[in-house]
């Protein structure tokens, strides 16, 4: 229990991931949903870094860099969409974004 | 292949110069019409200039393929980017590049709509035609063969006259059907080659050494025949030609007559004859019969025409019948004559179409009855027309005669009956051409619209000048042309006739007394039979 193994990191990661998922499922504010997604990505990163350290392989860290890059891109585009949407509909409530309804 | 070392990628250069010009044109605004015209003309001229070295560097004593370029293209099926030339293709390439210059130049005023697209298509067509002549890979050949179709289709379909869509579609479908069947033939050779050697290749030089069993040859010949005969065009596959010619813009007709039709005959001599020698011999009577029918039939139908361009188009059918006849004489004289006649046909019929184009540009009609008495109004035009008429009907000292006499002599030694009927074409040829000349040039100027037609301009004259020059050159001194054909003709002859002793072999054998022989040639040029070929 006192020795910190990758298991611990994985569990931490899983927990954080689940928090993010729940955020995505539960919240209606799109911005907060996006933030939850960032949490999910972070959870993944924790896992990657921990295993990278464990396996003595830099690939994990490299991927973290890429994940961060993708996250940045996602945030930029996503927030752009939100702004554009907000400008038209005056809302960021995800329940009102439902034009794909049947 | 020593010259290949000096000029490593001459053929590619020739091949892609027009295409490069077309690419440049893509980036020019379509409103800058003059700039487009200048670029197109410059490209065509450049294309001709880069092809000129072929004339000088081609070694007419060397029976090998020259200026060879070989690279992998689609390795998985054995297709290569394989270029090379022999005597046939050298002359035809030069004809192509020269006619390219002339066609582009002749379009200066004739084309006023979609100028940019027009020139791009024309230049693309140019690359397609050159490509078909230089390709030594069957698949590559086929590619270029098909590439030619598309620009021509658009040239007729967009810039043509009255019935252009009908003609364009007819041309396209007709040729396409032919080429699809030809493709089957190509694949048959391809798979047979693989069967025998285990190698997948489209290499024509390999195919030339292949001995295909007779039965298979027969079928492949039939497939090739349909593909090429449509293009030539031989009776009874000719009906697309008058329509296409009539409705195409002038430059299109010129290219069509001067170069595109040669694709068919070139196909025969490059593929059918050497790859399928036994079948060729078996088909001689049939092909000769169709050729003779074509000669007489084309001439007679030409006589009945009221449309100037259509008349020239039917005369093409007659002339191309002559070309096919010479080729299928399967004698060196006949084949040589056939190639020379191809050049001649390119020169004279090309010029005749240009001539129609000149008056069409002024009067916008092709009806012969609309003209008359032009000699008085356009004397220079009449003179050029006269010379080209004479060239077309084979007057000695002009080019047409050399071709006809070689072809007829070549066929005569094979069968007197064939020659007897084929030679009647010279009478009929004179009849319809002279009648045309009389109806358009002679008489009084009945039509007031014709009274103020300007004579040929300097630019128009520039399109005729090289053709006139060549007509006289080939007529008076065809030796440079015939020399370049020597080894290539012999190579084909060796394939179709196992007993044939090629001249280059004789030359190599008798190297010691070569100088002696040369002197003898000069001295006793009129002596009795001399052993040109022992």
């Amino acid at each position, binding site marked *: 229990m006192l020795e910190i193994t990758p298991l611990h990191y994985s569990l931490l990661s899983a927990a954080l991931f689940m928090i993010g*998922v729940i955020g*995505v*499922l539960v919240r209606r504010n799109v911005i907060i949903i996006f933030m939850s997604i960032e949490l999910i990505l972070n959870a993944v990163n924790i896992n990657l870094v921990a295993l990278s350290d464990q396996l003595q392989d830099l690939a994990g860290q490299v991927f973290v860099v890429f994940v961060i890059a993708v996250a940045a891109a996602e945030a930029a585009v996503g927030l752009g969409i939100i702004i554009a949407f907000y400008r038209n509909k005056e809302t960021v409530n*995800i329940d009102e*974004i*439902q034009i794909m*309804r*049947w | 292949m020593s010259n290949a070392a000096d000029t490593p990628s001459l053929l590619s250069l020739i091949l892609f110069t027009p295409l490069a010009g077309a690419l440049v044109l893509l980036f020019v605004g379509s409103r800058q019409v003059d700039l487009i015209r200048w670029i197109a003309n410059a490209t065509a001229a450049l294309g001709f200039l880069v092809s000129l070295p072929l004339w000088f560097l081609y070694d007419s004593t060397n029976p090998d393929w020259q200026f060879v370029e070989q690279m992998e293209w689609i390795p998985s099926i054995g297709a290569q980017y394989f270029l090379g030339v022999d005597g046939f293709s050298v002359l035809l390439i030069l004809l192509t590049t020269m006619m390219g210059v002339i066609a582009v130049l002749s379009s200066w005023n004739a084309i006023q709509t979609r100028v940019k697209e027009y020139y791009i298509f024309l230049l693309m067509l140019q690359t397609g035609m050159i490509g078909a002549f230089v390709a030594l890979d069957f698949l590559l050949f086929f590619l270029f063969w098909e590439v030619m179709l598309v620009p021509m289709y658009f040239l007729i379909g967009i810039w043509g006259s009255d019935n252009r869509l009908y003609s364009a579609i*007819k041309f396209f*479908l007709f040729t396409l059907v032919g080429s699809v069947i030809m493709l089957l033939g190509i694949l048959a050779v391809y798979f047979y080659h693989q069967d025998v050697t285990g190698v997948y290749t489209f290499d024509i030089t390999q195919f030339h050494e292949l001995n295909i069993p007779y039965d298979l040859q027969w079928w492949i010949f039939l497939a090739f025949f349909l593909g090429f005969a449509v293009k030539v065009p031989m009776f*009874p596959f000719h*009906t697309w030609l008058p329509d296409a010619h009539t409705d195409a813009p002038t430059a299109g007709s010129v290219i069509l007559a001067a170069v595109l039709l040669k694709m068919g005959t070139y196909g025969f001599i490059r593929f059918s004859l050497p790859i399928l020698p036994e079948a060729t011999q078996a088909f001689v009577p049939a092909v000769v019969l169709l050729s003779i029918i074509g000669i007489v*039939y084309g001439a*007679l*139908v030409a*006589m*009945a025409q009221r449309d100037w361009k259509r008349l020239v188009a039917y005369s093409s059918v007659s002339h191309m019948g002559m070309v096919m006849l010479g080729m299928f004489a399967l*004698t*060196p004289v006949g084949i*040589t004559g056939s190639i020379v006649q191809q050049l001649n046909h390119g020169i004279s019929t090309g010029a005749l179409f240009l001539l129609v184009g000149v008056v069409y540009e002024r009067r916008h009609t092709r009806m012969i009855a609309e003209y008359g008495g032009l*000699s008085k109004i356009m*004397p220079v035009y009449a003179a050029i027309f006269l010379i080209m008429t004479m060239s077309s009907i084979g*007057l*000695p*000292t002009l080019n047409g*005669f*050399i071709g006809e*006499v*070689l072809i*007829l*002599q*070549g066929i*005569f*030694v094979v069968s007197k009956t064939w020659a007897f009927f084929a*030679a009647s074409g*010279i*009478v*009929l040829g004179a*009849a319809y051409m*002279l*009648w045309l000349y009389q109806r358009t*040039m*002679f*008489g009084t100027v009945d039509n007031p619209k014709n009274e103020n037609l300007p004579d040929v301009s300097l630019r128009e004259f520039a399109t005729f000048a090289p053709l006139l020059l060549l007509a006289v050159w080939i007529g*008076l001194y065809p*030796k440079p042309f*015939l020399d370049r054909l020597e080894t290539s*003709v012999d190579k084909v002859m060796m394939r179709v006739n196992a007993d044939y*002793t090629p001249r280059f072999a004789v030359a190599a054998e008798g190297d010691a007394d070569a100088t002696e022989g040369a002197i003898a*040639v*000069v001295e006793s*040029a*009129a002596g*009795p*039979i*001399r*052993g*040109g*070929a*022992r």
Partner: protein
Amino acid sequence: MDLIWLIPLLPGLGAALNGLLGIRYFSKQTAGLVAVSTMAVAFVLSVIAFAGLLGLPEEERYHEVTVASWIPPIPLETANGIGSFEVPWAFVLDPLSGMMLLVVTGIGLLIHVYSVGYIDHEPRGGVARFFCYLNLFCFFMLILVLGSSFLVMFVGWEGVGLCSYLLIGYWYRKQSASDAGKKAFIVNRIGDWGFILGIFLVFFTFGTLDFRSVAEAAAGMPVEVGFGVLSLICLFLFIGATGKSAQIPLYVWLPDAMEGPTPVSALIHAATMVTAGVYMVCRNAVLFAHAPMVMEAVAWIGVLTAFMAATIGLVQTDIKRVLAYSTVSQLGYMFLATGVGAFAAGAFHLMTHAFFKALLFLGSGSVIHGMNEEQDMRRMGGLKPYMPTTFWTMAIGAVAIAGIPPLAGFFSKDEILYRTFLHSQVLWGIGALTAVMTAFYMFRLINMTFLGRYRGPEWGQPAGGEAAHGAGSHGDGGHDDGGHGHAWHGPHESPRTMTVPLMVLAVGAVFAGFIGVPAALGGSNVIEHFLEPSFTAFGAFHPAEEAHHLSHTAELGLMALSVLLAAGAILFAYRNYVRQPAAADEMARTFAGPHRVLTNKYYVDELYGATVVRGTMEGANGLWTVDQRVVDGAVNGTGWTTIFSSWVSHVLDKYVVDGLVNFVAWVCAEASYVFRRAQTGLIQNYAFATLLGVFAFVTWYLLAR
């Protein structure tokens, strides 16, 4: 002599100069000067070359010059194994071509000089064009004459045909002129078709096209009894000759060719080009001598042509047409000579004929010129006082052609008749009858034109009468605008440039015969001995001697007979056309039927028109219809079939195949009403579903392990 290739080249150069520069830049004088001077130099060179030839020993009088390669050797099988098809640009000077050379350049020069005067009424460009054509003609004619092989000769052969076409159609705005030109060319082409086939057969048989090699090879072959390959060659060649030399059945173009300017008729259609056929037959004398059957045919065709043309000539009223038929007739004579083996006599007659026929044509040109383009003899008469030089020179020509000694025609014609007599009395009979008719119609021409009463149109006095002249129907309006701008002041003598050549030719017509005085008259027949080597391949061939000879007395008797007959015909003509002008009409009425047939030239043109021309045109139109309906119809039919079947497919596709597809789609659509409720459009619902999936997966993972 090595420079003989310059002789044709000079007129060629003149033609190029006049053609390229002259039409635009030269004045009339310059154009004429260029043409005349090149011909003059060519003539001088010819004389020098001829002198050189005379200087050689008899058996070496064959000088061949190869200028350049034309068709390089290409192997080709022949009857004797593999040969080599090769034709160089080579020219040859031997007695035969030497004689022709002098005739062509000499008479050509005179006619050029004459033309300077004749063509003066044409506009400037027209003059240069005329001289360009005329020079070009001489160029090709000289190539024809000098060519050392069949193919080079053929070059000239076709080339003169072209020039003939151009010159006949010189007044191209006149429909009849351009028709005549076309007719000449096409009829000639029919002959050429035979000629070229003959050439091919020569190559196939001998493996070479060189005249001398062929002759030498043929000399070694036996004379054919039946119809062998040599006979076939000769037949083909003779077809060529009938075209060019206007023999039955291809003579129809020559009378029409008179549409051309008169100097052209003189040079091309009397003196030189039309004799090319005779020349060609003489060139191949050795070949023909080996084909007796063809020789017989040649003789018969010759004599029949001579007879037929002479009969037509009897009733023609157009002065040039009379001469044209006379030419056809005389050419028939030459073929008769060659047909009976008297090649030298044929060639001799060719030469004398060139003199007097050119003279007659030029004379008639002078008359026409003086009569303001009037050609109908019925509107002439009594012109002698107005144009004395023309009258006297033409009279000499007529006497010469009629065969009155000691003028040129007598010697050559009697030589032919004598040799014919030796061969066959029937041929001789027809030939003699023709000679009588010749004398008759020539003097009919002279009498109608120069003697008797003037019947022509009135001419305007300097003060008035312009209107009367303007209404006159003279000429055919074939002239260019620059023609007769000035009023016509009555018949007048022609200018010097025209009369001087007439006089020179008259001298020739008188004296040319003396080089062929037969032995019976104490001469030695120089020309025959001179030409002999050309007909025997320089001794390689020994023609069979005629079986029987007539004594000199008998020969003299024949001569006297023909002279008497000719004199009688002349007197008869004088009676009919000068003394009692009504007598001619009387005769025409008496023999109305034959007269009509003759006036209409035996309806041969109509016959050809109805059969050959009409047949070809109908055939052409018919084939065109076939082409449109059947051949193209098949193509279009294929197209329509394709379109129709595609329409059927379309219907099938739309209602059957597509129906099935649409049915499936309809089923799906109906079913989807049930399921589409799930599409809430809310992302979180979807995410929840995803999470459910993860739950299911992980649960399954745990349980399955």
